[in-house]
């Protein structure tokens, strides 16, 4: 974990620097005895800088820190990317086709990703879940579901 923490503290330093750069671009509005919109962000910048330094120092000098490596495997990256791609495609398709038509294929795709291989299950559950959510949310609780431009 030591190396991972060193890497994380470097990312946090970079983020702190970027955040400070954004704060410096905030428009000023001087009103007497009133703190500006940049006050709290600067306080948080200092806090994050201090905490990132502490994490770095702890990782560098605290020898008892465990040497366990927490990396990301290729399988994990592929899993995350494919899930995100499916969700983004689902959202994009929903803009045009609406919730009811596009949700069953999305659920079927997710079930396949989760290890489902039974054809009957892959056909029945997506339709059932889609209708159940539609009735429960839209009909019963009046919560709006995404409507498409086409349907």
């Amino acid at each position: 974990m030591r190396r991972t923490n060193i890497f994380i503290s470097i990312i946090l330093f970079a983020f702190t620097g970027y955040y400070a750069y954004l704060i410096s671009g905030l428009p000023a509005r001087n009103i007497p005895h009133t703190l500006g919109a940049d006050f709290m962000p600067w306080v948080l910048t200092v806090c994050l800088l201090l905490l990132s330094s502490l994490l770095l120092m702890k990782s560098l000098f605290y020898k008892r820190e465990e040497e366990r490596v927490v990396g990301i495997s290729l399988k994990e990256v592929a899993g995350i990317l494919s899930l995100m791609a499916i969700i983004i495609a689902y959202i994009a398709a929903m803009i045009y086709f609406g919730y009811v038509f596009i949700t069953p294929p999305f659920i079927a795709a997710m079930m396949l990703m989760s290890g489902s291989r039974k054809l009957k299950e892959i056909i029945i559950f997506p339709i059932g879940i889609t209708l159940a959510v539609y009735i429960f949310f839209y009909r019963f609780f009046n919560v709006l579901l995404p409507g498409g431009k086409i349907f």
Partner: protein
Amino acid sequence: MSDVALAALSDVLRLPNLIASMMGVFFGLFIGASPGLTISLGMVLLLPLTFALSPVTSFCLLLGLYTSGMTGGSISAILLNIPGTPSASATAIDGHEMAKKGRAGEAIGTAVISSFFGGMFSLGCLVLIAPAIAKFALRFGAPELFALVLLGLTLICSFGQRSIIKGLISGVIGLIFMTVGLDNMMGIPRFTFGYVELQAGVSFLPALIGLFAIPQILEGIVIGAQVIPKYEAKISGLLPRFKDITQLFKTMVLGALVGTGIGAIPGAGGPIAVFLSYDYAKRISRNRTLFGTGLAEGVAAPESANNGVAGGAMIPMLTLGIPGDPITAILLGALMIQGLTPGPLLFQTNAQFVYSVFWAFLVANIMTLFLTLSTIKVWVRLLQVPKRILLPIIAILCIVGSYALHNTFFDTGVMLFFGLLGYFMRKYEFPVVPMLLAIILGPALEEHLRISLIISQGDPSIFIRHPISLVFIIISLISFIGPLLKRIRASEEE
């Protein structure tokens, strides 16, 4: 009984509210009994439904889930030795041993009755203590409120976390997210990158859904779903004899006391309470050597404690606006969705709602008792619902729920962003609860800090000059430095 309390009771007993309670209890039992699904996840999935409900109906639904989720966690802990929720971890020790000896029914019955006792005890404490704290908290001005919010944040960031530094980093990053949007005092847009949707700030509901639900979906798909073994044996004899209950009374009182006390401390939470109560019960028991071999006392103490936590955690949430655990943090969010501001003023301006919360908690406890005992066979079967069906349902509820907030996919994007962040935070051992709390309490922290400094014309000594705020700041420092020194000392001793 006052007119306000009676009006609140008649409101809670309306049919829609009773149905909401029952739905919450059923959903909570399912969530609690299903290993891997947490009560927090159940709460965030139900939150979008509350948009269309009245505040009382929303709380009937959510409190039903909270109470029964705590009880439901014991079912899989006892039958399969897999705690449904972290708060049911200690129950598995003796509960599963009882099940192995063919006493699963007795173990579940003891767990349900102890949970009911713990819930009722903590409700009593809530009703008695909360109004007094709220009355006292009415004296708080901006400096005291700032110090109080700071105290809540530091307690959550440092107490019970594996790494205090990582807990604090998580909290600070949460606060940074809360600086996005139009500055309330100056009217200046901050870090909106030209997006109109960000002018109102980062919506906490998509952030909550992302932080709690998406990592579970990702883990389920990337790591693979946990294989749940099947429970085949018959469950009978759920109702313990009266004599057995009286013998467990002392243990249940102890568990409820520990649970309510620990629950009221922000950041402590259920898992600490259950193991503490188990340990105390073991110490005071005549059968202490039999603990771990299938003793009913070993089930009664943690189960009474984990439901005691529920009422205890609501004390600081309702009276001070400081949640005791992640679940009450989500309840706090539910209050804000309804346009209610938790804190001492809630008792003045919405007294009837506060009483409704008390009654709803009572109804939820009673429903949990009866519905768990009468439908236990259903939950045992539902333990086997495969993750390949659950994960897509959770994903749909996340997407629909985040969309429903403003009927825009921008919030769905925010949910996905926080979901990925939450996944990597969990992976690299950064706790998400401090971030969640910072997201909810951040705006109040900034507002009270700036108002205090305007009052004092920029003089920060205002926080020390006010005695109550000074006390809170000292406790904040102790809560941060104390565990740090303890860990340094422990490592030196090694």
